[in-house]
C-alpha cells in the first residue's frame, strides 16, 4: 500500500502540472475567505448598510463559529474541479505517454495502478481537509465574536463531510478520464458539464419540473448534497444545518460506484 502511494507521489511531486493545480487550489482556498472579508471591510468603510437590516457589512456572521464550517465547506465545493483536474491530468497523460502500459509491463498489476491513484486521492482529500480546517480555525478566531471551544467544534462535522465530497468528486473525474483518456478533452468536458450542464439541469429539474429526486442523482451534485447551502439563512430563509442522511448516503454511494467503475475500467480492459 505504502509502496503504491510512494510511486504515485514520485510521479506527481516531479510534475509541474501537479504543483500548478494544487498551488492554484490552495490559493483559492486561502483567497476566498480573505477576499470576502476584505470586500465586507470595504463595504463597511463605504458606510453601506446591508439589506433591510441595520447592521454593517463586517457584522454579517459569515465567520462565526458554528456557522463557519458549513459556509466554508459549501463555498469550497464550488471549486472542487481544481482538485479533480489532478487525477484527470495525471491519468490522461499516463495514457498519452504510454506509461500506464509500461508501468504494468514493469511489474505493477492494473489493480496496483488503481490503488496507487485512489490512495493518493484519499491523501489529497485528507490534506485539503486539514488545510481547510486550519483556515477555518484561523479566520474564525480572527473574526468570530464567539470563540468558546464548544462552539468552535460544534459544526466541525462539515470538515469530514467536505473530505468525503472531495474523494467522491475526484473518483468521478477519474472515471471520466478513464473513459475518454484525453486530458484536454476531459478537462473541457468536465468544466462545461459541472459549471454549465449540471447547473442548468439542476435548475430545470428542481424548479421547473419540481422533480427533486432526480436532481439529487446528478453526478456532481450527488457528491456535495451532504453539505447543504447555508446562505439562504442570511436572507432569513430556513436552512438545513446538519448533514442530511440522503446526502451522506449519496456521497458514500458515489465513492463506491465511481470507485468500482474505475476499478473495472482499469482491470477489465486492454491497456492501450
Amino acid at each position: 500500500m505504502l509502496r503504491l502511494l510512494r510511486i504515485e507521489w514520485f510521479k506527481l511531486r516531479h510534475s509541474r502540472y501537479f504543483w500548478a493545480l494544487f498551488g492554484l487550489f490552495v490559493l483559492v482556498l486561502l483567497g476566498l475567505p480573505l477576499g470576502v472579508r476584505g470586500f465586507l471591510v470595504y463595504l463597511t468603510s463605504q458606510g453601506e448598510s446591508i439589506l433591510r437590516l441595520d447592521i454593517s457589512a463586517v457584522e454579517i456572521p459569515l465567520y462565526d463559529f458554528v456557522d463557519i464550517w458549513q459556509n466554508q465547506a459549501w463555498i469550497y465545493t464550488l471549486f472542487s474541479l481544481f482538485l479533480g483536474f489532478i487525477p484527470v491530468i495525471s491519468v490522461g497523460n499516463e495514457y498519452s505517454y504510454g506509461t500506464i502500459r509500461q508501468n504494468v509491463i514493469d511489474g505493477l498489476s492494473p489493480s496496483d495502478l488503481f490503488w496507487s491513484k485512489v490512495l493518493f486521492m484519499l491523501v489529497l482529500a485528507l490534506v485539503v481537509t486539514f488545510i481547510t480546517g486550519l483556515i477555518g480555525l484561523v479566520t474564525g478566531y480572527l473574526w468570530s465574536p464567539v470563540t468558546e471551544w464548544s462552539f468552535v467544534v460544534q459544526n466541525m462535522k462539515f470538515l469530514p463531510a467536505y473530505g468525503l465530497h472531495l474523494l467522491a468528486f475526484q473518483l468521478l473525474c477519474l472515471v471520466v478520464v478513464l473513459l475518454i483518456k484525453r486530458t484536454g478533452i476531459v478537462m473541457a468536458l468536465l468544466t462545461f458539464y459541472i459549471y454549465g450542464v449540471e447547473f442548468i439541469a439542476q435548475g430545470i429539474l428542481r424548479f421547473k419540473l419540481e422533480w427533486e429526486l432526480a436532481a439529487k442523482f446528478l453526478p456532481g451534485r450527488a457528491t456535495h448534497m451532504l453539505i447543504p447551502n447555508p446562505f439562504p439563512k442570511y436572507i432569513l430563509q430556513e436552512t438545513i444545518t446538519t448533514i442530511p442522511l440522503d446526502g451522506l448516503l449519496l456521497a458514500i454511494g458515489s465513492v463506491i460506484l465511481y470507485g468500482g467503475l474505475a476499478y473495472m475500467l482499469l482491470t477489465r480492459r486492454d491497456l492501450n
Partner: protein
Amino acid sequence: MLEINQLHKEYGRITAVNELSLRVPRGSVFGLLGPNGSGKTTTLGMVLGVIRPTRGSFRWFGELPTPQQRKRVGAILEKPNFYPGFSARKNLELVAMIKEKGRDRIDAVLRQVGLYERQHDPFRTYSLGMKQRLAIGSALLADPEVLILDEPTNGLDPAGIADIRELIRDIAAMGKTIILASHLLDEVQKVCTDFAVLQQGHLIHTGPVAGQEQEVVFELDAPDQEGLLEVLPLVPGYLSHQQEDAYVSLTVASGTLPEQINAFLAERSLFLSHLSVHHRTLEQQFMEILSQHA
C-alpha cells in the same frame, strides 16, 4: 522460459493472434518475425499482461502468470514509454521503484546505453535513438532474466540501428534470453539463434536460425567447368551443388574454409576464376517458408 499455449486474441472481427503455441528456450535469442500487422505486438502484449487474451494461456518460468514475474522480465513494447518531463535518471528511478530492484544499477545502465552524459536532460529532448537506448537500459535495469524488445530499431537511421544491434549482441553475450520482434529479416538473421514466423496471427514456422552453424554456400567458377563439376562431390564437407547461370553454387558443411576448397581444387589442377562465400540467408529460408504456405 516462456511457453505459449493456443493463445488467441480477437478485436471484434479481426483475429490478431490465432491459436498461437510457442516455446522460447532459456538462453536463446528468439526472433519473432512477421510483416506489420501479423500479431507480434499483440502476442507480446498478452504475455506482458497489458492485453487480455480472448482465450489460451501462457507460462513464464514454468509458472502461471503473475505481475510479480514481470519484475524478472525487462520489456519494451512498440515504442519507448517514459515521462517526457523527467530526466533519464528520474525515469529509471521510477522503474526501479516499480520493480523493487535496480536502483544501484542506474549509473551502470546509463553508461551501458551511452546516456550517462545526458542523464539529467528531460526525456522529451532526446533523439529517437537515445529514447530507444533508454528503453533498452530501462529493460535491463533490474537485471532481468529475459529481455523483450519489440521493433527496437524502428525509425532509426543506419548508425542508430548499428548501435542498437551491437547492444543486443552484447546483452545476448551476457547469456540473457532475448525475445526480439521484428519485421526485418536481416535483423533477426543478424542476432537471433531461433525464430518463429507469424503471418496474419498464425504461426507458420518455428525453429533455429540456420546459418554458418549448419551449412555454407560458396559460389565458384573455373575456366574448366566440366572438370570442376566432376571433382566437386569430393570436396571436404560436400553436401550438394547446383549449376547456376554464371557459376556453380556449392553447399558444404559449416566450418569449411574457402582456402581449403581452393587448395583441394588446385591439387587437382583446377584453378578458380571466382570464389565467394554465401551464407544461406534467412531471407531464402523465409521465402521457402512463405512459398510452402502460399
